[in-house]
């Protein structure tokens, strides 16, 4: 199955920027459930699959459909469906099928482990623009270490193969942690064997609800992140080296992303959030109507305090992924520096400087395990 056509991502970003100028909520994200059948230590949201209390509070299918119609009427065109694990919802297709008739460009995130041949065939009747499956390892042992469910490895492979058999557009991605970092190249090989791409991410955010989670135990060290970035995204490190000053040059808006300008998220209970990593404000589109909730979200974003002066003047700010979600989940403040990211930027600058001086370039994704 072919990936997105060349230029697709660039075009979507350009359309999102244009929508932001118009304050059109063009990109929506529906988190259909927080429940998941895997138990990844680093997850920012997961609730147990059989959590009856959570399931009882989840928005019913009909409410998702009417919310989607309201959002589409207000200008939503791109819609991402995610979880938790979306296929834990037995009524998934009661939500999905009507969405395919609304003029929406749909993307679906899943861990793939519950995708049966029957589900793949149903999806193929009106497939999403893209399905993305996250791989957590290249063996049952690694799946066990990351997700707590070793057999999920075989289930995920079966799900991928079912989607491929039915011609459902598919991309793979992975979240790199201390537990699976040695599997990155084997996972790439798996992807190649299927004729698929694999995108790697290693930036692990804490839970949005503030509950304890294992993100810190799963995160790579800042030095390992920098080494991985040097291999996986060499352009970013080269840019740090070449540009010298990377401060924000006077642009101190709190939300530099499209949140509240052209994008929004709805959590599994039907509350509108800025994004899935921020749980405040939690607006009530079902009570106020979608358009009012969207206006409230815009007001929240517009009234947010400016970036912390320490971040605004930081030489690495333009390269730093810090955002309000990072600050809130690390510090409780919308704007405070996130020290993990400060350390990461320092590690990247050190590495970029060493490379500029002709020093050794990392050749393997990360150094020896430090846990």
């Amino acid at each position, binding site marked *: 199955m072919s990936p997105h056509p060349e230029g697709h991502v660039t075009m979507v970003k350009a359309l999102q920027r244009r929508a932001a100028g118009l304050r059109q909520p063009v990109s929506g994200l529906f988190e259909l459930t927080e429940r998941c059948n895997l138990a990844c230590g680093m997850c920012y949201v997961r609730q147990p699959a059989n959590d009856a209390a959570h399931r009882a509070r989840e928005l019913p299918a009909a409410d998702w459909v009417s919310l989607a119609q309201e959002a589409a009427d207000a200008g939503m065109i791109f819609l991402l469906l995610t979880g938790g694990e979306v296929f834990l919802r037995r009524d998934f297709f009661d939500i999905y099928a009507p969405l395919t008739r609304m*003029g929406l460009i749909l993307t679906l995130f899943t861990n793939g482990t519950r995708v049966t041949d029957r589900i793949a065939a149903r999806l193929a009747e*009106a497939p999403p*623009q893209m399905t993305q499956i996250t791989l957590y390892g290249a063996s049952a042992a690694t799946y066990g270490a990351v997700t707590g469910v070793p057999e999920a490895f075989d289930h995920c492979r079966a799900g991928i193969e079912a989607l491929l058999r039915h011609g459902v557009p598919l991309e793979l991605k992975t979240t790199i942690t201390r537990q699976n970092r040695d599997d990155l190249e084997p996972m790439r090989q798996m992807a190649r064997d299927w004729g698929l791409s694999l995108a790697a991410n290693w930036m692990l955010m804490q839970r949005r609800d503030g509950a304890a989670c294992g993100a810190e135990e799963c995160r790579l060290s800042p030095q390992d992140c920098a080494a991985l970035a040097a291999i996986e995204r060499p352009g970013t490190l080269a840019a740090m080296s070449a540009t010298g000053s990377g401060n924000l040059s006077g642009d101190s808006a709190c939300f530099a992303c499209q949140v509240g300008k052209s994008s929004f998220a709805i959590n599994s209970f039907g509350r509108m959030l800025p994004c899935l990593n921020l749980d405040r404000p939690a607006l009530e589109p079902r009570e106020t109507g979608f358009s009012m909730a969207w206006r409230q979200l815009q007001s929240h974003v517009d009234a947010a305090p400016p970036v912390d002066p320490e971040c605004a003047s930081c030489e690495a700010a333009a390269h730093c992924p810090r955002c309000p979600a990072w600050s809130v989940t690390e510090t409780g403040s919308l704007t405070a520096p996130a020290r993990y990211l400060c350390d990461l930027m320092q590690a990247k600058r050190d590495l970029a400087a060493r490379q500029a001086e002709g020093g050794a370039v990392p050749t393997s994704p990360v150094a020896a395990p430090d846990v």
Partner: protein
Amino acid sequence: MRSIGSDHLLVPLGARTREVRGLVVLNEPARFMWDLLAEECCVEDLAAALTARFNVNADRARADAAAFVEEISQIGLLRP
């Protein structure tokens, strides 16, 4: 047809998503021609309408109309 300002996206519905992949974004002249294609017409008809509506000469209009028809045929949006 979905719009963001003056950009118009053709978004397939239901089973048509199997046939049309990627984004199809139309500018104003392309959207004008797309609307005309709701009824049977040929490249010459499109070119004449483009000339009348937009400030383009006949040669340019014909080239643009032919290119548009070719492009949407290739991605499965136009059937003979």
